[in-house]
């Protein structure tokens, strides 16, 4: 299945890449290899149909790797990078290669090489600025980053309490939900369902469903802020545009503030592909907005329930282990004290 996808997409991507390079002004829009005349089928109520199961899995990094100067890899370079990364992921499961084998990525389709992936020759997901890098953090953003680091410091070490640990280990937030919807190390799967007036995007990871109303409602003013912000959307021709604001900033995206707005654009460009593009605008962190592009590939459904918190033995056991180590250390330092 994957091989066939590669074969099918390879020449198209190369052709589109060449076109894109030749016409700089439209490079970003054309880079993902879509046939320009594709028109999505319609839902019964007339929306372009984005429904089904999709994956935004990729080996392409958000930012262009240091030292990389080209905007696109050659297909050979991309293939070498993919196979190298797949080998490294596979090697993580060899006993003794890393201190702790958390998951055997080669089983159950967890490693990225087994996922549905839309081929993407770009050297970074970021398409603007043209250097493929997140713009420099401004003074306000730097101040906030220092305050956040100090607040984390006050919480103590990662294993001191649940609250001091990472959001994903706590099953509170994982990156696929976004917005923007970033791919994860595994399970970067989505289910899109449309009903009159709504588009729902369900991220498999910790069952995060976002219901986007398609009307002219304003962003709520005042005190309503959420982990995932508040989203509303509209159709711009073939493209679903979703605008999200009202973030609580407890899950900053690359250091973002509560003033961040994210504008996402979903365009079905082939039977098995959606072009997903997002722009991050946050004057509290960056002086200029920046934009990234991440194709979504049709994947096989259905999605199974991802009950993360309910089975979070990992968090529980690491806290138990940390307390046990403290008692042992106390006992070693002063016999009788650790009891």
């Amino acid at each position, binding site marked *: 299945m994957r091989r066939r996808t590669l074969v099918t997409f390879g020449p198209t991507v190369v052709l589109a890449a060449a076109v894109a390079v030749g016409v700089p002004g439209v490079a970003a829009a054309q880079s993902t290899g879509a046939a320009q005349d594709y028109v999505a089928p319609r839902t019964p109520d007339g929306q372009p149909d984005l429904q089904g199961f999709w994956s935004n899995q990729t080996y392409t990094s958000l930012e262009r790797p240091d030292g990389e100067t080209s905007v696109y890899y050659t297909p050979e370079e991309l293939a070498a990078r993919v196979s190298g990364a797949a080998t490294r992921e596979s090697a993580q499961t060899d006993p003794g290669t890393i201190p702790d084998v958390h998951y055997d990525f080669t089983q159950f389709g967890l490693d990225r090489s087994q996922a549905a992936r839309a081929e993407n020759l770009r050297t970074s997901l970021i398409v603007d600025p043209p250097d493929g890098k997140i713009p420099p953090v401004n003074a306000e953003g730097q101040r906030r980053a220092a305050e956040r680091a100090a607040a984390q410091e006050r919480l103590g070490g990662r294993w*001191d309490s*649940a609250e001091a640990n990472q959001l994903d280990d706590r099953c*509170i937030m994982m990156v696929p939900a976004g917005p923007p919807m970033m791919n994860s190390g595994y399970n970067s799967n989505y289910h899109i369902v449309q009903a*009159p007036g709504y588009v*729902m995007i369900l991220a498999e990871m910790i069952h995060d469903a976002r*219901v986007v109303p398609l009307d002219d409602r304003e962003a709520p003013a005042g005190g309503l802020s959420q982990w995932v912000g508040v989203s509303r959307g509209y159709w711009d021709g073939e493209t679903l545009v979703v605008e999200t604001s009202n973030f609580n900033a407890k899950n900053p995206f690359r250091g973002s503030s509560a003033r961040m707005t994210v504008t996402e654009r979903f365009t079905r460009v082939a039977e098995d592909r959606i072009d997903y593009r997002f722009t991050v605008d946050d004057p509290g962190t960056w002086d200029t907005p920046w934009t990234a592009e991440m194709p979504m590939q049709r994947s096989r459904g259905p999605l199974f*329930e991802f009950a993360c918190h309910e089975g979070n033995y990992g968090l529980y056991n690491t*806290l138990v282990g*940390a*307390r046990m180590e403290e008692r042992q250390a106390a006992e070693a330092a002063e016999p009788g004290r650790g009891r």
Partner: protein
Amino acid sequence: MLMRWEKATLRAGVTVVTCAIVCAATSVPVWGQTTEYRAPRGSDGNPDLNGLWQALNSAHWDVEPHGAGPSVVRDLGALSAVPAGLGVVVDDVIPYTADALAQRDENRANRLRRDPAIKCYLPGVPRGMYMPFPVQILQSQQHIMILHEFAGAVRTVYMDDHMPAPADSWMGWSNGHWEGETLVIDTTGFNGMTWFDRSGNFHSEALHVVERLTRRSPETLTYEVTIEDPNVFTRPWTMRMPLYRRVEEHAQLLEFRCVEFVEDLIYGHLRKQP
């Protein structure tokens, strides 16, 4: 056969006798029958159940008839005291086996520690449908999504790609089909770790749930659910209640990401001591 509150409703109406005969003969939901409401159709021709719905009763405290009672958390006083309820169980009493009834009573006595929803665990089916949070139904031809504000719980109802549950889960595996005005959802594959309410009413992993959702007016639908679990009950039994549309402008699901609200409860004793 009729619940007390249904009888009360019917006494106020003019079609008591007719309905008693018709309803007994057809065993169709009582107030669904009397209205003979025909739901608006979606563009796919099926009844339109889209919207935000919510129960307005005290079944989330106790699905059986119950009087008012004190809060299990002393400091919350009247704010979390239990409001009385006429119950939503058809024939009032859940037909537990003797052992299961003893288990239910034990659950109830220890509900502050044992109720899985206190820990922000996924609420299961049908409990999520009548918690005091909105539920959004989002309907496409292939998949009907049932989205709960509580804990962001999600259920996908597969309308044409039916399959058996691939594994056990908290919200089960739901296959659906239309029977005229009614969406029928058949759900199995439960893990046996959820409850029906805050009063210890429970089931095992053998739970089989059949729900029937029927529009009964522009702003209400009838929610009927039949529970089957031979490990716990002597026979299948049914709950029935109206769900009401959240009609306020721009009503939408908001975030109730409750995991962070329960971390201190679950993990607080493992906090590093200074």
